[in-house]
């Protein structure tokens, strides 16, 4: 967990009171919507189709039980009893009244949660691996660095009015769970030949209308230099970024237009000016942040406790364990993913009751800590293996043990046309139908890892470009149509999917996905060749043939 200091707390309360005043002036007509809009966006408040939407940051995806209960409280008291976890370690509430927002913000500030920089053209929530600090083989807890960057960039005047929004993600593992290659800046923590800790810095990733996979700008930047290096990138972006055209304003366009070499040279020049400045982190500063992350007092526990041996006789438990339980860096412990993708449910939604149950279970079984991942699922990061059977029973009762993590029904989807004012087409009902088609978890298990991502428009909030199967809603003569891509991926081997052919109407999307999956089952080399590898080996043609032969 991370302990915020008094300064943070004071700042949050001041911000809430400032916003309370702004809301009051808006409601009395003293502020026009034009004047107010930028202020509400700075506090995470959007307008959707039916109501205001309120986006709250969950820095590097770490929540305490107190914080999760506060989110449950906000859902219950100010919203309609649920919240939506997003792909960027945020939670969104869909029905908040403007007049009540300052109270909701104040309640959250009590537990150190805020909505600053969750929208607008500034530095957004610095995200990280949801397994940070517990994943085996990790170089170091990446959240230390997320926090250093968060502190440096929060409310920093130079980064508050960027040409466009700016997103950073950090990983410290071989396997990238933070999707760093589709971020404006991706940071991969690793050690150089001298054993020093630093970052491979990637830049210019992003999806949306013009998708790009990030490119490496510098293979190694020493940890102490990371603030100055990131600042150098931002300065070059601030200077050259296209403020005149919203479609060209993201850094990915600048990197693409200048080329990574030229862009890298500009950054290097800027960095030479900055690198030996006050931005250099001394060991003390790093240590200070490191010391604020506390880790549980793990017990010395057996690798295979009796409770686990016994429970292994229950095939339902075993299915869940094999699917949702992952190795921990400490023997005798596990990381447990909680699927927020029940069959027939909207991906990523959790009710206030579920949040409270999860908080209770985290207190009991995970040292009071919860994680939020970009796949729109949650995780309990420190579960003793002996507690797994009891935890499973409790999760199952609350509808939180769907054994579909990383499977075809573990769908990432944006809110789409049911909520979003920018949408062309619905996302959630498509996801729901797909989870019903693939409701048999044993079959889904045989299909293996397969990520489906759905966005309701080209903004790509559902990361459709990097779904193994990507589904994008478009509009054709007033009807909902969907473009289908295959072969995308968001991890260390990030790639953009390839369109398989003409878009298909709403009613046919699930059939098309079934066709694609059936084609894969027929084509795969062996049961352990993953969908994504079969697509890589064979290209899109055989899938295309299968889908369009009968259409």
């Amino acid at each position, binding site marked *: 967990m991370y302990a915020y200091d008094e300064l943070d707390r004071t700042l949050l309360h001041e911000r809430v009171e400032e916003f309370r005043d702004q809301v009051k002036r808006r409601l009395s007509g003293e502020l026009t919507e034009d004047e107010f809009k930028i202020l509400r966006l700075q506090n995470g408040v959007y307008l959707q*189709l039916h109501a205001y939407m309120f986006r709250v940051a969950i820095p590097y995806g770490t929540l305490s039980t107190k914080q999760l209960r506060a989110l449950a409280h906000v859902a219950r008291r100010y919203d309609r009893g649920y919240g939506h976890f997003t792909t960027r370690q945020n939670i969104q509430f869909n*029905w908040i*009244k403007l007049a009540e927002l300052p109270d909701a913000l104040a309640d959250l500030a009590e537990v150190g949660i805020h909505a600053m920089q969750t929208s607008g053209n500034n530095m957004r929530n610095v995200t990280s691996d949801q397994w940070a600090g517990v994943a085996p083989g990790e170089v170091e807890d990446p959240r230390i660095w997320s926090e250093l960057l968060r502190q440096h960039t929060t409310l920093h005047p130079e980064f508050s009015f960027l040409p466009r929004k700016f997103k950073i993600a950090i990983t410290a593992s071989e396997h990238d769970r933070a999707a760093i290659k589709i971020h404006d800046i991706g940071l991969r923590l690793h050690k150089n030949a001298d054993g020093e800790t630093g970052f491979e810095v990637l830049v210019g990733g992003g999806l949306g209308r013009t998708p790009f996979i990030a490119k490496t700008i510098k293979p190694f930047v020493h940890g102490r230099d990371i603030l100055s290096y990131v600042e150098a990138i931002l300065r070059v972006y601030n200077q050259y970024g296209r403020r005149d055209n919203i479609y060209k304003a993201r850094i990915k366009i600048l990197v693409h237009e200048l080329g990574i070499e030229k862009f890298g040279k500009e950054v290097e020049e800027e960095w030479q000016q900055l690198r030996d400045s006050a931005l250099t982190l001394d060991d003390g500063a790093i240590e200070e942040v490191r010391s604020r992350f506390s880790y549980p007092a793990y017990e010395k526990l057996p690798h295979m406790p009796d409770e686990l041996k016994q429970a292994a006789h229950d095939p339902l438990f075993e299915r869940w364990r094999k699917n949702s339980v992952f190795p921990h860096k400490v023997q005798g412990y596990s990381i447990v993913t909680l699927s927020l993708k029940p069959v027939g449910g909207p991906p990523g939604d959790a009710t206030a009751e579920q949040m409270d149950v999860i908080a209770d279970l985290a207190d009991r079984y995970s040292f009071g800590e919860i994680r939020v991942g970009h796949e729109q699922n949650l995780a309990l990061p420190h579960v003793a293996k002996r507690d797994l059977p009891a935890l499973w029973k409790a999760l199952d009762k609350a509808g939180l043990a769907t054994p579909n993590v990383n499977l075809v029904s573990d769908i990432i989807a944006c809110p789409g*046309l049911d909520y979003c004012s920018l949408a062309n087409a619905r996302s959630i*009902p498509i996801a*729901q139908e797909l989870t019903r088609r693939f409701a048999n978890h044993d079959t889904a298990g045989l299909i293996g890892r397969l990520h489906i991502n759905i966005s309701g428009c080209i903004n790509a909030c559902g990361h459709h470009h990097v779904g193994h199967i990507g589904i994008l809603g478009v509009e054709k003569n007033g009807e*909902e149509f969907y473009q289908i891509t295959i072969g995308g991926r968001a991890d260390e081997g990030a790639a953009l999917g390839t369109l398989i052919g003409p878009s298909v109407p709403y009613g046919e999307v699930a059939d098309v996905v079934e066709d694609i999956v059936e084609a894969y089952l027929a084509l795969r080399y062996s049961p352990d060749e993953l969908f994504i590898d079969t697509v890589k080996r064979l290209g899109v043609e055989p899938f295309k043939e299968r889908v369009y032969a009968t259409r």
Partner: protein
Amino acid sequence: MTSPLEQKKIRITGPSVVTANRTHDGVVIYRTPQHGWSSRLADAAIVRTSDDARALLAEAVADDVGAIGAYIAPVAIKDNGEIAPGNLREHIRSEGLTIELPVPA
């Protein structure tokens, strides 16, 4: 931001209404013939010419305190005179989500 009145030439091709979201809670509202707002599409003022649409929108936009994001939306008038939303987006705004909410109201 440019006002919706300046954004593009306003041209409607069929019966239309002016809709927005209520400022204090975001609820979907429609401009009424009585120069006010209603949360029911049935109460909406119907315009059939571009000039009328422009005038109704101007009136709506002038109420910056009460409503935000006013715009012209198409509707269909059924044989019995009932007003129906003109497209799926407006259907969802008027009737609510096409999915069940996680917590039933």
